């Protein structure tokens, strides 16, 4: 059975993605900072889908631990999905460097650090799939979340470059740009219902895109066009908007 590694397995989106792959008979490696919090999901995947699941301690911002984390996995995964992220508080981050650093390091530096290691191993193997869950927030900076957005912008650019490099090695890199999703992260935001996806919708889109070897997907699909419009607003007008 193929194996998928899920980095940041504690989130609602990660649970949905893990179940989607497990229902298609993938063994699942769950990685998160608080490994004890994953044991219920580990049992759940095993009992529901009859697959093997395992849990592993992974801290996105503890960069020096990443190499050891990866080599300690029971087997190198066929698919790696980077789901972790930290929305944080834009307002606090503007004046509190600790908060700003946490946003940048979780969403960007941490992802680069761990995916560099995995990319090298996949390149040497000449096989594998890397999926990065970025965000439409990275496509244009807005006053309400530009710390998070700029980190995701960096991550999106990183994935694009990684895809370019690894294509020649037979490794598939998929960038995922979700719009609004009903998760704990967005629970306190009022998001318009027709534009907001369920985590299961995102998980299905990710799975199908992995199978179809897509490069970049938006989920829900219409976010591609929403972002096209948002990106086309002239900066002179955009800067005056309250977004």
């Amino acid at each position, binding site marked *: 059975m193929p194996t998928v590694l899920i980095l940041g397995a*504690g989130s*609602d989106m990660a*649970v949905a993605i893990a179940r989607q792959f497990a229902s298609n008979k993938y063994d699942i490696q769950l990685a998160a900072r608080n490994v004890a*919090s994953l044991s*219920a*999901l580990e*049992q*759940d995947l095993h*009992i*529901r889908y009859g697959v093997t699941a395992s849990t592993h301690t992974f801290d996105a911002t503890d960069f020096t631990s990443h190499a050891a984390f990866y080599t300690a996995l029971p087997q190198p995964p066929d698919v790696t999905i980077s789901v972790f992220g930290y929305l944080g508080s834009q307002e606090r981050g503007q004046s509190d460097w600790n908060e700003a650093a946490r946003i940048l390091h979780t969403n960007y530096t941490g992802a680069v650090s761990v995916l560099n290691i995995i990319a090298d191993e996949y390149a040497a193997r000449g096989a594998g799939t890397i999926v990065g869950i970025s965000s439409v927030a990275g496509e244009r900076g807005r006053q309400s979340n530009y710390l998070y957005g700029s980190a995701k912008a960096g991550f999106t650019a990183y994935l694009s470059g990684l895809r370019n490099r690894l294509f020649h090695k037979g490794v598939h890199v998929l960038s995922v740009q979700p719009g609004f999703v009903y998760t*704990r992260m967005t*629970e*306190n*935001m*009022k998001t318009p219902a027709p534009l907001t996806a369920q985590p299961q919708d995102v998980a299905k889109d990710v799975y199908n895109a992995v199978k179809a070897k897509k490069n970049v997907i938006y989920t829900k699909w219409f976010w591609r066009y929403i972002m096209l419009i948002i990106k086309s607003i002239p900066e002179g007008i955009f800067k005056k908007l309250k977004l």
Partner: protein
Amino acid sequence: MEKRLANWGNYPAMSCDETTFSQEEQVQDFISTHSSVIARGNGRCYGDASLAQHSVSTLKYDKVLAFDITNGVFECQSGITLDQILDIIVPQGWFLPVTPGTKFITVGGAVASDVHGKNHHVDGSFSGHIIDMDVITGNKETITCSASIHPDLFWATCGGMGLTGIITRVRFGLKKINTAYIRQKQIKARNLEDLIRLFEEYKDYTYSMAWIDCLQKGDSFGRGILIVGEHATPDELSEQQRKAPLQLAAKRKLSVPFNLPSFVLNTLTVKAFNWLYYLKNTKREINNVIPYEPFFYPLDAILHWNRGYGKAGFVQYQFVLPLEKKEGLVAILQKISDAGLGSFLAVLKVFGKQDSLISFPMEGYTLALDFPVRKGLFEFLDKLDEIVLQYGGRLYLSKDARMKQEVFWQSYPNAQKFADIIKTYNGTKLFRSVQSDRLLLTE
């Protein structure tokens, strides 16, 4: 997030602040920072039992923790729904020990309502199959309880509408099956007398219930169809079914896409529907083998069927009367028939004995009726309440959206004991709902 919530009856609807959790610490954090909250599952109770200004949705707390395939023991977090459990256990030859008429409820909801099914007269209600469970009580402590450990908490939580705390984990026993099919028998009854006699005649069947046409008068008063069933054995299946006796083919679901105008369901259409439903069985008795889904969950095949009652919503009125008070049943059906308030769906069942603190079932007849919310309905239901009280019956809290508090206190013999246990485990009234305030359990 602040949103407009209503349960299955779409009445009442109110603005609620609902949060989710997938780890126990998250719900601990939430209740530590709020002065009142109620747990909410899949919103399939009909009225206001899981509505409150602040609610915690258990739907993301939905992990399966253990499944002992040899002994049929299932352990899970409280937010998993019965349909997910069936998908896991049926292919392994196990079934829910007790299931209500919809599989879209959570396990936590099944406990808090202490749900019953078509097999109540044989297997009792859900609480009788619980091995143990965890409840986060008012002092934010997680307590494991069972019929022998903290029995007061256990019995006040079964059927306790979430007022002792938030149910987080449940372990319960399953029922062995050899096929995913039911051997079903349907028998037409000419009137209520006939129907009650049939219930008696077929009481050895594990599953039984009856549909009643409550708009008939005279000789046909209370005519209906008794439906009984047993889990089918492999030799009762067709050759095709026997190839994979525990697998069911996936079926397409229909959906009511929006609220129908409320005039769609009127006396005339209900009459026509009931007439057709009764006459579709051209023979007095029909025997067949059918998949378990249409037998247990006929309405689940139509998603959002509650929208058929229109925007104003509906209430389901379910009461139980003691076995010897059959005349009360006649009196109530008479009142409904006289008022011309035909219920689209009227379901009759005979409950077996039940000994519990606050659960709804007791030995006797239970009837469930749907009434669209309209002017004069609540006054009419108050009159029905009087008859229920007069005959020593009571109403199902999971269906209730409007009962007056004195009706509750007079009809549930253990109401005071229940209130005392709530004080022990929920002394600060941390867990409260619109319903519990209305019934003066947390006011």
